[in-house]
């Protein structure tokens, strides 16, 4: 770009030289005109070539909490009092947002007059999450290319929260009658703590610090141990959701994949269960280097608890694989991480919950799922597996390269064979989110978990 302008400058420098030579040879004084003009022209242009001074502000004209599919309106005010050249702006956006109206890139020619401009554009949220809108970028191309092309940023501190679109399920929509009679009241309850004291026992991982009985602990001769007060707990049955975040959950697009559908399913399901005073806990598969405590919400009930689950799932991102080796060893093998998870094991032992694993079952993770399900069954938990199948999503976006083995796409019947390899006590719900609604999937899962609401 600047090369083009430099061509003008070079032309203006070459012209007088050539004319001067011709004037000397021809001794024609009128050719002086041809020498003066380029010099005057370049002198005027040089006097205009100044550094740009910009003032840019950006304002948000809609709420900073949106739902997926809702729009965000942004307005930028640009003021350029000094400079001579083209200025290119790039206003902030995010890859998880789609521009629906206007554009975030603009170009302005700054001439002799100061410039005041106002630009607005609309963005549509495509995916849940917390999105930090980064800086406004600009590039100034001075008209003659004599000054440096300068680039700059204007910091923007804007965070937009996009909530997932969940389905509020009514009782009438998911009325189920299981063939099995299972009491709603769990043998072991795991709701919020009441004030009814039960006993003093040894501290275990996951116990709230406020229950530590310091006096009793100090009386102990063995200083390594802590004692806690145990209180009676409220609540009915306990449901624990385990959400897989492995590579297989990302098949599809960034916005439409088993993970995104799994989160919407989980939130809708959790809201329904919490509405019936059932304790709900959520575990998401941890990413390498993540704190374990940030990846689970202990089982509890109430509307506040729903917010806790929602906040955690809002920022849940898939486990990224850096190399094929890592993909095989870690991304697919994330579930067995929980085989050693003390808190989870303790809760399973205490409450014998219904565990709903949300995953995408393929031959790659079948063995891990099988091992994990066996471990849960040994702990006497009820296990249900929701298999979020991405085939229809992939077919919908047919041209994309998902890296999925061809036979898995072409032969979904293989699923049956795969399910046969899992323990028989595991109830399996096969869900195709492109065709079946969340309500239908929840209903199937309720039947599978033998819960009568």
């Amino acid at each position, binding site marked *: *770009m*600047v*090369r*083009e*302008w*430099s061509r003008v*400058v070079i*032309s203006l*420098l070459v*012209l*007088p*030289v*050539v*004319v*001067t030579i011709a*004037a000397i*040879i*021809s*001794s*024609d004084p*009128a*050719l*002086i*005109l041809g*020498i*003066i*003009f*380029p*010099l*005057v*022209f*370049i002198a*005027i242009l*040089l006097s*205009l070539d100044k550094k740009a001074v910009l003032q840019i502000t950006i304002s948000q004209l809609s709420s900073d909490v949106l739902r997926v599919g809702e729009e965000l309106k942004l307005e930028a005010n640009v003021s350029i009092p000094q400079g001579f050249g*083209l200025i*290119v702006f*790039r206003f902030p956006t995010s*890859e998880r947002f789609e521009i629906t*109206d*206007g554009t975030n*890139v*603009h*170009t302005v*020619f700054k*001439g*002799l007059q100061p410039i*005041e*401009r*106002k*630009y*607005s554009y609309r963005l549509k949220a495509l995916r849940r999450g917390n999105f930090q809108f980064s800086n406004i970028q600009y590039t100034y191309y001075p*008209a003659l*290319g*004599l*000054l440096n*092309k300068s*680039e*700059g*940023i204007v910091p923007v501190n804007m965070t937009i929260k996009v909530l997932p679109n969940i389905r509020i399920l009514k009782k009438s929509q998911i009325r189920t009658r299981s063939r099995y009679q299972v009491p709603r009241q769990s043998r072991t309850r795991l709701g919020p703590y009441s004030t009814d004291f039960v006993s003093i026992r040894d501290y275990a991982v996951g116990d709230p610090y406020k229950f530590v009985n310091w006096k009793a602990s100090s009386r102990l001769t063995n200083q390594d141990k802590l004692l806690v007060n145990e209180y009676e707990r409220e609540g009915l049955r306990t449901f624990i959701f385990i959400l897989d975040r492995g590579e297989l959950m990302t098949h599809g697009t960034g916005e439409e994949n088993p993970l995104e559908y799994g989160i919407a399913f989980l939130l809708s399901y959790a809201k329904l269960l919490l509405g019936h005073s059932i304790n709900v806990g959520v575990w998401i598969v941890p990413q390498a280097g993540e704190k374990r405590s940030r990846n689970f919400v202990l089982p509890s009930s109430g509307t506040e608890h729903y917010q806790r689950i929602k906040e955690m799932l809002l920022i849940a991102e898939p486990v990224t694989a850096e190399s094929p080796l890592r993909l095989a060893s870690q991304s697919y093998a994330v579930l067995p991480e929980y085989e050693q998870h003390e808190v989870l094991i303790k809760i399973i032992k205490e409450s014998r919950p219904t565990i709903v694993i949300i995953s995408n079952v393929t031959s790659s993770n079948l063995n891990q799922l099988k091992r994990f399900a066996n471990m849960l069954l040994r702990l006497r938990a009820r296990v249900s597996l929701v298999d979020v199948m991405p085939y229809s999503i992939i077919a919908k976006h047919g041209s994309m390269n998902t890296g999925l083995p061809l036979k898995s796409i072409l032969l979904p019947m293989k699923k049956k064979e795969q399910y046969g390899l899992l323990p028989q006590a595991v109830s399996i719900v096969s869900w195709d989110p492109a065709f079946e609604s969340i309500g239908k999937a929840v209903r199937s899962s309720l039947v599978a978990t033998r819960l009568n609401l």
Partner: protein
Amino acid sequence: MNLGRRGGVERDRMEKTQIILLSVLISLASGIVIYASGPTLVSETVGIVIVFFSFLMGILSSTPTASGVSKIAWLIFSFLLLVACLAFGYVALVLKFPFGSYPLNPDALGLSVLLVELSIISSTLFVTYRKFEFDFKKAGYEVDEIRSELSSFSRMFVFVALGSVTLSLLIYLFLQIVPQLQIDSLSVLIIATIVYFAIARYVLRTKNRKMETKEESSLTTSSSPSKESSIDRKSDKKKKNGVGGKGGTLGKILGTK
């Protein structure tokens, strides 16, 4: 959506067709000036050749690439200077060209050279306009906005060029009219050379400084896969080529470091 678009922009827009038309008309005018300056075979032939080249420029501008437009303007310019060298002065005297004593009007030739220079500038502006329009369009910018801004840029450039022409003519007339300042052509050439060197040194020094700093900030690592980065890369290429920089031929001639 641009809420702050100036109302008058659409009306006053200077499209690239207008720029090339201006360029063609100016070079045509230079041919006509030569043709009309004297009823000699040389002036008529030179005038007709320039007119022919001007039409050729117009035809080339309508081709998809329009690459040769500014080259034609340079060709007219070179042709005019060649004719000037052969028609007057030492070459004609030594080689005894059969052009006659006054084959061309010297004043008309001077004016013609000025017009062709103007044509060179406007044709370069046309090429620049096309290049920018193509690059920005490819980068996904709003076509209407780009055209509007490039029109403002072109208009400004043309106004500055016309102002320079006026000022140049005034300087020239001033030198011609005021008797006490009547300087011989050689002195004027010396003065012009000094002014030229002063400006050229300033321009090349600025260029050299630019090459040395090589600041190219890290901002080019933008997140979106916009084609704007390709524009940046082109400017980087320009830096490597070192237009008029340390290694440039012009720089060597002028002795800039």
